[in-house]
């Protein structure tokens, strides 16, 4: 009886906590300035990437250091549309003019249409991920070898993007946007709208990921992580699951890229290079690997700290942020959310444990080591 009470209470607490987060996101425009709201919107986009990364790394055990590419491809697809929209019909984007290109390259043509651009910005990363997954997972390439391949992918794509300045904008990237679907990107109401879309995308991605990691499918994913051979003996094909989940994760990164470019107004190869790709993994590591809320919160928290610290201490913020990373990695192997869950477990049936969901048990179990 007591147990049931606790379960009910926990459920109520969880629901309340979710409601509070959603309400907070919904009300943010009321107490944040345009600039801060825009920043928050960008962080929410990062949160979507973090969810996708947690899905493959935290739950399935695939470490990708190449998600910057999927994010970047998504962003570039949308940026190409926005650039053509800003340039106007019959004219060439500015960087093509100064690079000596005389007519619009064929692969730019489809990006005249918003719908096509949006679709491609999610589908292209998924396709690339599927290809990479097809050639690696089926050949049982995993662990550090897979991770190295993702890094190689980053190097290849970034070098290509920088080298083809006439078609991609080179290191400058693509910027100078004005309108999306006829709405001015500068107007506050469009900015508000984009913020809400980002918030909705994050919530939607969260629900999607949660659905994937719960139930039998999620169990298989975790089995891929913890005992691939055993899973194979049971008649499952881990490669299919890996390919699927990696593709979904890439799609989420592409979606995040779209939201990013709409709100930030620039995409450049430096945003998809090795360092940002590793940073994305750091968000998940610090927020709490294997906890969806933790991963998303990690992305928000790290980026808010980054912005805040660099504004307050422009000369040495990098040391503070670096220190934070070291502290978390050394002392909190399960990230900030692991700490919360631990504290929650101490308080018996408290909020933290409940919110950590499936991982809560593992954390409690660890105490008996």
């Amino acid at each position, binding site marked *: 009886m007591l147990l049931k009470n606790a379960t009910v209470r926990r459920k109520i607490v969880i629901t309340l906590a979710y409601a509070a987060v959603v309400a907070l996101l919904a009300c943010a425009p009321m*107490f*944040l*300035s*345009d*600039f*801060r709201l*825009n*920043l*928050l919107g*960008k962080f929410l986009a990062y949160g979507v990437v973090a969810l996708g990364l947690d899905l493959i790394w935290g739950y399935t055990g695939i470490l990708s250091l190449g998600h910057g590419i999927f994010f970047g491809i998504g962003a570039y697809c949308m940026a190409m549309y926005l650039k053509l929209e800003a340039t106007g019909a019959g*004219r*060439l984007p*500015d*960087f093509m*003019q*100064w*690079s*000596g290109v005389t007519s619009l390259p064929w692969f730019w043509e489809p990006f005249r249409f918003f719908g096509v651009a949006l679709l491609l910005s999610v589908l292209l990363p998924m396709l690339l991920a599927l290809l990479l997954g097809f050639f690696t997972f089926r050949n049982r390439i995993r662990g550090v070898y897979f991770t190295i391949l993702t890094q190689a992918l980053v190097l290849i794509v970034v*070098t290509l993007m*920088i*080298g083809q*300045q006439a078609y991609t904008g*080179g*290191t*400058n*990237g693509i*910027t*100078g*946007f004005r309108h999306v679907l006829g709405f001015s990107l*500068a107007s506050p109401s469009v900015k508000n709208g984009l913020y809400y879309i980002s918030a909705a995308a994050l919530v939607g991605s969260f629900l999607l990921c949660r659905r994937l990691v719960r139930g039998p499918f999620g169990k298989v994913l975790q089995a891929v992580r913890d005992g691939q051979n055993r899973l194979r003996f049971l008649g499952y094909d881990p490669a299919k699951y890996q390919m699927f989940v990696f593709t979904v994760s890439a799609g989420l990164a592409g979606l995040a890229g779209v939201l990013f470019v709409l709100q*930030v*107004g*620039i*995409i*450049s190869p*430096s*945003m998809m290079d090795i360092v940002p790709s590793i940073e994305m993994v750091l968000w998940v590591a610090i927020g709490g690997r294997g906890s969806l809320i933790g991963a998303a919160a990690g992305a928000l*928290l790290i980026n*808010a*700290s*980054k*912005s*805040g*610290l*660099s*504004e*307050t*201490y*422009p*000369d040495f*913020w*990098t040391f*503070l942020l670096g220190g*934070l990373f070291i*502290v978390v990695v050394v*002392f*909190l192997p399960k990230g*900030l959310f692991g*700490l919360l869950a*631990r504290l929650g477990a101490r308080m018996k049936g408290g909020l933290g444990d409940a919110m950590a969901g499936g991982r809560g048990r593992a954390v409690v179990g660890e105490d008996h080591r």
Partner: protein
Amino acid sequence: MKRKRTKRFGILALGAGLLLLAGCGANNSANNGASPSASGGSSQPASSSAASGSPSASGDGIKVGILHSLSGTMAISEVSVRDAELMAIDEINAAGGVLGKQIVPVVEDGASDWPTFAEKARKLLTDDKVATVFGGWTSASRKAMLPVFEELNGLLWYPVQYEGMEKSPNIFYTGATTNQQIVPAVDWLLENKGKKFYLLGSDYVFPRTANMIIKAQLKAKGGELAGEEYTPLGHTDFSTIISKIQAAKPDVVFNTLNGDSNVAFFKQLKDAGITSDKLTTMSVSVAEEEARGIGADVLAGHLTAWNYFQSIDSPENKKFVDAYKAKYGADRVTDDPIEAGYTAVYLWKAAVEKAGSTDVDKVKEAAKGLEFDAPEGKVKIDGDNQHLYKVARIGEAQPDGQFKELWNSGDAVKPDPYLETYDWAAGLSGGNG
């Protein structure tokens, strides 16, 4: 047991510390207008935690933004420009400020990352409501900030020579455009050093655009292209390229490499036994500051094109160099972008005083045709494209790390970012942006 407890304590303490840190950040990113007093930063008066919501010209001071990379690969170059801008602000403040008010610099870090430049520019304009911003170095950072300044009708002073093909109504360009640096340098080389050019550059927009212009110029003036090579930014192995250069036997290597690559290139050139009397190189991104990194003895004899050298003999320059060394150390050097950053602050001050206001449109109107006795000589703002009239100069590196001026254009050259007054450049600009 005891150990476990200590560990627990440690974790709790850490957690509290992290929350504090994060709170500090979150506080900053969350509070505007509401509670300016609550921000956690206290170390620097210049930082952004100053009261929000106040208009730039009210109360005790006028806020201006300083936005350079203080971290990342570009920090090594941009920090000294920031220093020069802060020095100009200090000098102006000591002399009574602008419109009777002190200038309050708000320093931000662009972190060598273009979207960060855009973010910080937006923050300076909307949160801090600065009257103007001095900042940027790479073309990419300028391109990233441009839409923000145009959208919010801000004012940016950009202090570095660049590839031209741009005139934003919200940017003043205090460095050279191509017709004040590259074009005269190529003309001078064709006349004095030979017709056969080898183009070597880092792989990004400035070298590619510069080389496109040089190729058109060579074609029109009877020059010859011996080769064209790009290396990724930060590339340090030039052995292959040096043997290609040896095989091509050019009269001139026109060098648009940027950053660390220059150190490697010149050292390896020297190691290969190619000294400046055997091969002429002309660099457009190697100034006094870079000469320190390359090594003055390695660079000695090589050529460079700028609008300013520390060695310029004028009372304005002596005052500037002495003040810079007195403030930041005798081992520091001044160079072209440092001087252009310093000049930008004084030009803005002059425009504000002429306009009697810090309002962007009034300042822009007042800036038209404005003149200033800068360390490089008299500069004038072109009212149409908001670039500066500048004297083009060619210098030769000396064993002491300074440059000896070999040639200058005499009169200040009218800025022409789209090369509209050059017949051979007709096909390049494609149309105005």
